């Protein structure tokens, strides 16, 4: 700790930080542009000028950039000094000399850091009378809008895009006051994290193009804390609504999870909430025709199907909240509750949970992955299956070189100096997957092989780390060399992390990753990171559901009268024939937010709410239970799934769900029923929670149009909807100040309208939110058990003539069921294909784009061949969730021929 004096007041600060960070941490307002807590300082904008004095007798002082000056003990600075104030006003005036007269038509307006800083420095009138510099804009794809005239040349965008996110196709062009930030030519930004430019750019150069389709100012959006529903990482988001439509997703900072960033799937995948595939009315299937009916009629019909004497089973869903799944489980009984995950995935999730709750391993948060100094990725294409984990790994590879550079006594925040020393050096990152991944470019070494070979590599690394682990026989020379290199790097590292998951569908790979983590030892260090397929896969896994395949078996055996399917498109889980058999031989009641094929075939369908229209808890890959809150009241007869289940039970005269009338009730019951969830209900801010006796408003005090929005329908405005289920209110009334961290509905502070106001919500800039980051870890390893090695090591993959091992290939845009239908994401999604190595293509005699036929699960699929030079020979990759190939458990062997 050190003491600095700001305008003669002493402050206790951390000498490893710079003056700007510390001033902001202490709540002082100091304008800045180019510094960002995640990017560090470069001193490019000159906006954060303060006066520094040598000692208390120094009257003259000198102007320094706060972001480039360490917060050294005894430092004396002045923010209010006349010269400093004038200097900062001058800088803003310069920055504004070319700025267009755009605020009214600028999507950044009202949440613009440049506006805030201009007001803060007091620059009001334009003195510059000459021509303004202008630029032409570029088309940057469906996500990002470009309006280059508004640039103030702070360089944040390229520093983020290139240095932080590893993007290649955005750069600074030209020179002097002509510097241009864009691509070398028009085209979609390739990086998977391009959406963060919206929040990184302090001006309106890069704005959210999906928001533009239904533009709303920040102050008019009704917002609530939410959790991303598009992969297993559970990034925290703020979802905003206006006029009954979900209009944008913004990052919600959580130091332990997503920090400042989201991936493009999470940010732009919300379109499904407003889509025309939404189910808004219950439907009944009669004489092969589905027709909309009232809720009462649908309930009456269902009452017959769910009656006491009826044998009912329930199929849950990894994309439904734990509350909804638990409500179904309670209704049908735990012996009749099936997970609804694809059988392979379900098996892997159970396996991963088993490993993570055993001894010798611990799952890290994303933040901990970021600080790892050696990473081994086994079998997982993380950029596609758990995007933000890839971003974290890209930071992890900088740890080792940065640590070296910092030995030159360069502070952690001095980004330009560190980069100069580090150059392009990368710390150890080893990737072993069946096909090339986007992270390969950051890797020390990549290894290609079939899943079994990937697993063998892992097992061999474990053996090299610990001689008591079982050996792997028959490795090639190169493999042995790779194993030695990997083991050496992991052993040398202080915080090594192994990353794996269900992505390539192989249990051996999961086991191998666990084996490496155990061999690394060091109990208590976070060293094993798993990912699963969906947002609540782990939450569902913790509910100990029965296997999905068994549900189909029971129906086939004629032991079931009625199946209740919760938010699940079964066609994505098992083969078409199985689902059709189930639809034909049992009464199927589906509850879902969109009209999936399962809903179309169900006898009765009820419309449930999406993540934005309900409230619930999801458990992410770290085992972190996180609550998401309802953002708005949906149109039509849409209700939360748990609410429909309660009504179903009541209509059928069943008592299982009596007394469980809210998510709070369900969570409390869950905490009692399932040991893994013990303690969680007490930690969640439930419906009765109040801050100073008040609810937390979802609307900002500036929200407009209250007396006109519905005046065209009826001039007497309706009472605002009430929210009995959460501590948030659907109005602008309520606790006016900062709520506790899990209930942050928006980042805003007086004078700070942009996302930069986040500084005011953190205990210390760049650190945890004041009051702690939200979420509670449910998965912890047993404290002192012996870690046992498995010796089930698969034999090496052997090709068979004319036959391929078909493996799943994931896509950030297209593989996730919900985001895939969002218009912006759909534009970026690839079409169906069969990826082959060039050697195999030659053997088969196919060219790129020609069709091949594969046989899987009894079905024939014709797919255009895609030649992929990084594909393992003998392995064929098909995209997950894209095209007609659904419900097939992969990897699987298949014959393949040219058509």
């Amino acid at each position: 700790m050190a003491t600095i004096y700001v305008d003669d007041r002493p402050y206790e600060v951390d000498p490893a930080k710079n003056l700007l960070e510390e001033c902001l941490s202490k709540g002082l307002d100091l304008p800045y542009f180019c510094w960002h807590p995640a990017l560090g300082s470069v001193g490019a904008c000159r906006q954060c000028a303060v006066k520094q004095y040598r000692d208390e007798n120094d009257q003259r002082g000198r102007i320094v950039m706060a972001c480039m000056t360490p917060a050294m003990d005894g430092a004396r600075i002045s923010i209010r000094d006349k010269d400093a104030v004038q200097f900062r006003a001058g800088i803003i005036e310069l920055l504004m000399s070319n700025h267009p007269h755009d605020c009214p038509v600028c999507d950044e307006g009202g949440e613009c850091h440049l506006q805030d800083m201009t007001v803060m420095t007091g620059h009001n009138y334009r003195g510059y009378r000459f021509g303004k510099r202008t630029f032409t804009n570029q088309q940057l794809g469906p996500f990002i809008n470009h309006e280059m005239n508004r640039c103030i040349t702070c360089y944040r965008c390229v520093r983020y895009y290139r240095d932080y996110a590893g993007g290649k196709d955005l750069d600074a062009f030209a020179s002097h006051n002509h510097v241009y930030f864009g691509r070398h030519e028009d085209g979609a930004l390739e990086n998977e994290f391009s959406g963060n430019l919206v929040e990184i750019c302090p001006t309106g150069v890069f704005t959210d193009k999906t928001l533009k389709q239904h533009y709303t100012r920040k102050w008019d959006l009704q917002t609530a804390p939410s959790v991303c529903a598009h992969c297993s990482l559970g990034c925290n988001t703020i979802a905003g609504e206006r006029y009954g439509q979900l209009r944008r997703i913004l990052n919600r900072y959580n130091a332990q999870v997503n920090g400042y960033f989201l991936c493009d799937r999470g940010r732009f995948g919300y379109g499904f909430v407003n889509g025309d595939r939404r189910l808004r009315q219950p439907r009944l299937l009669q004489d092969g025709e589905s027709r909309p009916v009232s809720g009462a009629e649908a309930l009456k019909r269902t009452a017959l199907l769910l009656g006491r004497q009826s044998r009912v089973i329930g199929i849950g869903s990894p994309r439904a909240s734990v509350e909804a799944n638990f409500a179904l489980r309670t209704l049908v009984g735990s012996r009749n509750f099936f997970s609804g995950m694809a059988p392979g995935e379900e098996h892997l999730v159970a396996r991963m949970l088993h490993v993570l709750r055993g001894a010798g391993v611990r799952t890290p948060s994303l933040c901990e992955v970021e600080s790892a100094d050696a990473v081994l990725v086994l079998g997982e294409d993380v950029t596609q299956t758990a995007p933000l984990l890839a971003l974290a790994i890209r930071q992890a590879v900088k740890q080792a070189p940065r640590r070296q550079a910092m030995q030159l006594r360069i502070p952690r925040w001095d980004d330009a100096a560190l980069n100069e020393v580090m150059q392009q050096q990368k710390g150890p990152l080893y990737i072993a997957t069946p096909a090339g991944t986007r992270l390969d470019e950051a890797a020390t070494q990549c290894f290609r092989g079939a899943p079994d070979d990937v697993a063998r590599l892992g097992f061999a690394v474990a053996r090299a780390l610990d001689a008591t682990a079982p050996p792997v026989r028959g490795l090639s020379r190169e493999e042995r060399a790779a194993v030695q290199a990997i083991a050496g790097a992991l052993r040398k590292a202080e915080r090594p992390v192994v990353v794996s998951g269900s992505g390539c569908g192989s249990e051996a790979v999961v086991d191998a990753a666990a084996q490496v983590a155990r061999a690394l030892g060091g109990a208590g260090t976070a060293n094993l990171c798993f990912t699963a397929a969906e947002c609540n896969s782990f939450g569902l896994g913790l509910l100990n559901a029965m296997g999905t395949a068994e549900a189909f078996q029971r129906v086939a055996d004629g032991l079931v009268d009625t199946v209740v399917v919760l938010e699940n498109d079964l066609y994505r889980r098992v083969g078409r024939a199985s689902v059709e058999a189930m639809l034909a031989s049992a009464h199927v009641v589906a509850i879902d937010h969109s009209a999936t094929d399962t809903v179309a075939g169900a006898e009765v369908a009820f419309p449930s709410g999406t993540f934005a229209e309900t409230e619930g808890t999801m458990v992410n890959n770290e085992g972190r239970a996180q609550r998401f809150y309802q953002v708005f009241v949906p149109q039509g007869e849409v209700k939360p799934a748990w609410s429909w289940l309660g009504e179903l039970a009541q209509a059928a005269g069943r008592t299982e769900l009596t007394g469980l009338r809210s998510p709070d009730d369900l969570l409390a019951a869950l905490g009692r029923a399932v040991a893994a969830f013990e303690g969680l209900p007490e930690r969640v801010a439930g419906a009765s929670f109040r801050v100073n006796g008040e609810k937390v408003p979802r609307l900002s005090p500036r929200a407009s149009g209250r007396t006109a929005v519905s005046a065209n329908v009826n001039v007497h405005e309706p009472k605002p909807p009430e929210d009995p289920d959460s501590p948030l209110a659907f109005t602008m009334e309520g606790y006016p100040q900062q709520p506790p961290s899990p209930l942050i509905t928006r980042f805003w502070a007086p004078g700070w309208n942009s996302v930069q106001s986040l500084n005011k919500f953190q205990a210390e800039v760049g650190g945890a939110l004041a009051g702690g980051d939200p979420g509670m870890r449910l998965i912890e390893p047993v404290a002192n058990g012996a870690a046992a090695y498995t010796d089930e090591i698969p034999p090496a993959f052997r090709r068979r003539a004319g036959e391929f091992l078909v493996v799943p290939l994931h896509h950030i845009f297209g593989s996730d069921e919900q985001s895939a239908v969002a218009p912006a994401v759909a534009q970026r999604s690839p079409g169906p294909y069969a990826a082959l190595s060039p050697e195999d293509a030659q053997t088969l005699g196919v060219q790129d784009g020609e069709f091949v036929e594969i046989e899987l699960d009894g079905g024939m699929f014709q797919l255009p061949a895609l030649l992929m030079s990084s594909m393992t020979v003998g392995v064929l990759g098909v995209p997950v969730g894209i095209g007609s190939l659904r419900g097939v458990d992969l990897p699987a062997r298949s014959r393949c021929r040219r058509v």
Partner: protein
Amino acid sequence: MLSMLRTIWTVLLHLFRRPITVQYPEEKPYLPPRYRGRIILSRDPDGDERCVGCYLCSAACPVDCIALQAGERPDGRRYPEFFRINFSRCIFCGLCEEACPTYAIQLTPDFELCDYNRQNLVYEKEDLLINGPGKYPGYNFYRVAGLAVSGKEKGASENEDKPVDVKSLLP
């Protein structure tokens, strides 16, 4: 006693004053152009809608009686897809006009907004939009703004230089 006499005297004097009562509605009072009555949306000198859907008027409105939705035309111009004022709530404070950066929304001297049915006081864009520039004849926002719209490319606004050639390093 004295004050009573004075009051009677004053009243007496008023008998000889010119009456100021106006025979409204037969006789219309004079209202200055800046009187704050019924609100209109104006057009720019080229005849296009002025409103760019910036939401500033609705934010400024203390009774929240303005609601709109911003949209973008294929030619790049922003406009309100709908624009609604609930005059049964409006207090004619003029804050919307003050907030408007394009001079689109203006209050007029027409104060005769009476109806038996409140619903009739809800005005949509069709009811608000007039065929002229109102009080500010010359102003055209798109001639000043940096946004390119059809008929005005980048660099063609007032006080703007031609777009930079990013491939050139010349000063």
